[in-house]
């Protein structure tokens, strides 16, 4: 698809069925108010988590030059996200600033250990986003390989792979991931096992979508042409089948990041994801569960953070879907 052509069509306001140019997609997504807000939220959360990721790994990134240093020391709005203040310093369970007993020093109050809750919420973005992206990527890559092979070869290979996929599908992801995490980690779960668990658990979903796309691409003339000119099956899959089945899977992946964050929040809440003192929204909700009667605020903020982040991915993903799928026209 020539770029100029697709622009021309957008300019005249008409749109053809085959118009999949990426410029067109971008302009459609950004032209849709809700999708644009979704993009802003996603971009904001990504920026925040990139900042916290660099900050948390400063020592490692600079080969030890910035040991025990955090940007938080320069920015007065942040405290140290993990360090528990020594006894006497830092009051615990301070209510948020708009509360009569709160103060602007801790805009969202402090947690039971006396740490600034706002800092911990901000630094919590890092875990959610990186886990969401990495495990979706694992599911995406695994699913693409299985789905492409299954759809392209068909027959017995397809049958066997699809039965395997259905089997993994039959166990609820949360249960499968907890069993995986606990047994593989030898009884001491951590976020890294959760990332792989979630990724593997979602391979089947991706495999199914890719497979159905491949089934339709397989019948195309250009595949036949490639076959007739003697291109190897592996190269056909790699060069023709996968690139042409990509768009719907990409949309699905965006929406899947939201689902993954949701699942990981549940895992951490139950104690099988991120472990203290790492700031993580699900894990913070797990701690605050014990303070439901004495400090209501602790249970509210991490949930709001999760809700907004996932909403961003959903809005953006929906917008992307509308832009790529000419059938749905609202």
């Amino acid at each position, binding site marked *: 698809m020539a770029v100029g052509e697709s622009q021309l069509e957008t300019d005249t306001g008409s749109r053809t069925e085959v118009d999949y140019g990426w410029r067109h997609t971008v302009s459609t997504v950004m032209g849709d108010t809700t999708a644009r807000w979704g993009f802003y939220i996603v971009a904001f959360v990504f920026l925040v988590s990139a900042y916290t990721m660099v900050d948390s790994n400063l020592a490692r990134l600079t080969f030890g030059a910035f040991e025990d240093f955090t940007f938080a020391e320069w920015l007065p709005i942040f405290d140290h996200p993990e360090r528990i203040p020594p006894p006497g310093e830092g009051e615990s369970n301070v209510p948020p600033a708009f509360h009569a007993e709160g103060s602007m020093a801790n805009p969202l109050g402090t947690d039971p250990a006396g740490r600034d809750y706002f800092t911990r919420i901000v630094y919590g973005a890092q875990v959610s986003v990186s886990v969401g992206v990495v495990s979706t990527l694992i599911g995406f890559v695994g699913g693409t390989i299985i789905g492409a092979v299954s759809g392209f070869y068909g027959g017995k290979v397809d049958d066997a792979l699809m039965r395997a996929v259905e089997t993994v599908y039959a*166990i609820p992801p949360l249960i499968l991931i907890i069993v995986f995490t606990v047994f593989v980690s030898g*009884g001491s779960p951590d976020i890294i096992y959760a990332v792989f668990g979630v990724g593997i658990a979602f391979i089947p979903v991706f495999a199914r979508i890719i497979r159905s796309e491949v089934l339709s691409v397989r019948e195309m003339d250009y595949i036949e042409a490639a076959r007739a000119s003697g291109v190897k099956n592996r190269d056909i899959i790699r060069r023709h089948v996968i690139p042409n089945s990509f768009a719907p899977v990409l949309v699905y992946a965006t929406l899947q990041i939201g689902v993954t964050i*949701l699942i990981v929040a549940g895992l951490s809440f139950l104690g099988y994801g991120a472990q203290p003192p790492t700031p993580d929204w699900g894990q913070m909700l797990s701690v605050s569960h014990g303070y439901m009667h004495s400090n209501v605020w602790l249970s509210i903020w991490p949930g709001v953070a999760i809700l907004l982040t996932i909403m961003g991915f959903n809005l953006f993903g929906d917008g992307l879907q509308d832009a790529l799928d000419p059938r749905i026209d609202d």
Partner: protein
Amino acid sequence: MRLLRYTLYRLLQAIPVLIGVTLITFVLANLAPGDPVRFMLHGQEVDEELIRTVERRYGLDRPLHERYLVYMGGVLQGDFGHSIHRNRPVLDLMLARIGPTLLLVVSAYAFALATAIPLGILAAKRRNQPEDHVSRIVALVGVSTPSFWIGIMLILLFAVTLGWLPSSGLVYPWWPPETYGHSGYGEHALETVRHLLLPMIALGTLQMATLMRVERTQMINSLQGEYVKLARAYGVPERTILRKHAFRAAQLPIITIVGLNLSTALGGAVLIEYVFNINGMGRLFLEAIQQLDYQLIMGITIVIGTMFVVGVIITDISYAYIDPRVTYGEEE
């Protein structure tokens, strides 16, 4: 007769999936580094001889494939092994806990369907009007919020702040009212509902949101269908079109989604049972995981996998019952 054959065919198809579920669970449970008995002891120091005895007692000294076959032989006869931790048959433990989970999941679906279908139809009928926008926001928030957090918020609002509803446990309608000190069946039913309300909404919201989106899209598509145009041309009243022509065709994908989402609902039940202190399969699973109780974990995973597979088969069969063709002559 056709339906019976279809049912049998679907049941046969489920067999390889169920075997796969047991295989996955078995392999995962044996992925743990070191041997099972030592793993279960959480690293405590015990006499070597004792470990050997326990291994022999539970057949853990045999090779892996042999253990799997022995285990599967037991499962086929309804014997899920023995919980080492609780010293009771796994089957008994699960049977005692399956009722509350079924009650929770079924009522969550009842809530989801009862809200999603009317709201989805309303949104489709009043497309791009305020009702539609509200339903979209509800659906968006519904799919973006963790169910356990909804549960926590409901407890904070209705139990802690307002004190209207209980925050934990369920009242089982199948137990006699006297067990709870209720005066009669009226109070018993009321208490059952009062306890069920919050966990039901917490677990059902995600399903409600998903189903509402699907219902809306389906109704919009369905209202644009040729048969609806034809019915309009025949002068069939708009209400009849909505109720009889458009509605029925739009429900087919809903049935499929209900079946497939059972997996999410059963997983969500683990979290909701934890938040609301409900003694169901989900809590039993978490306890088993915490105690690293092999046999119990395997039993629960297999039973939950089976529940999902059976759920999908039931929806598939009910799909076959609803004939998607709508006849026009009779409705005149």
